[in-house]
């Protein structure tokens, strides 16, 4: 556990929970990043596009101070480019079929104790762990 950083993890997690809470109590919306991204770009819902685009702009804007002041905080994935292309397709298709990702199911849905989100979170965390193990033992790809 050489890279375990519990305090910054708890602090960052609390900020994420606070963000989701502001969005829920302020606008009644769920802070699910995959749904917000897909909705902003691909579904024409009347009056639903502006807030979603704004949320995405906020996410990217949050990266800027890290890039300028603490560049080590935003790293590129160690995986090969071809793997990232496949991973992107799977994440895109999977989060739309499954109606959510780590934020919408993992944070918001788990906080509501939603059975669907609890099931989805257990499945995607479990599958991701199995995938990393399979790549480690099958292809010798230690992350």
């Amino acid at each position: 556990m050489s890279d375990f950083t519990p305090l910054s993890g708890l602090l960052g997690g609390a900020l994420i929970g606070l963000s989701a809470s502001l969005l829920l109590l302020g606008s009644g919306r769920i802070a699910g990043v995959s749904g917000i991204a897909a909705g902003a770009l691909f579904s024409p819902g009347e009056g639903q596009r502006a807030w979603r685009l704004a949320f995405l702009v906020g996410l990217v804007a949050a990266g800027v101070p890290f890039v300028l002041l603490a560049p080590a905080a935003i790293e590129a994935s160690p995986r090969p480019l071809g793997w990232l292309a496949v991973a992107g397709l799977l994440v895109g298709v999977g989060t739309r079929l499954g109606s959510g990702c780590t934020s919408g199911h993992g944070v918001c849905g788990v906080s509501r104790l939603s059975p669907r989100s609890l099931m989805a979170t257990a499945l995607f965390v479990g599958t991701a762990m199995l995938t990393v193990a399979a790549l480690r033992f099958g292809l010798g790809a230690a992350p």
Partner: protein
Amino acid sequence: MSGGRDRTLLALGAGALFGVGLGVSGMTRPAKVLGFLDVAGDWDPTLLCVMAAAVGVHFWAYRWARGRSAPRLDERFFVPAGSPIDARLCAGAVLFGVGWGVGGYCPGPAIVSLAALRGPVLVFVGCMLLGMLLALLPRPGD
């Protein structure tokens, strides 16, 4: 409509706060996320702390919201109805999990990382958006 403008500004601030949280917690470093998923290796439980704190805060916000008839800036809450667990949900979660394990990116950290304008994250996000579009195409029978 000023309600719409207020909601847009709130979403901008919430997105920024969410992104700062991801950056502070180390979740914009895919190697660290993969370190959590790599239970057979040098396991890094940080992601568990991130989830626990986020859920710990939002759990109470949701309970507070349940006691209200509407959010501050809109007429109602847009919280998903309690649909049953179905094959589509499970298949989607499994595909997402495989993709997460292959790449080390989930959607939030990947979008924050766009700020660095590096090739790997641009490839991931481009393919993720393509995957979303494919999944949203109307199918026969829908």
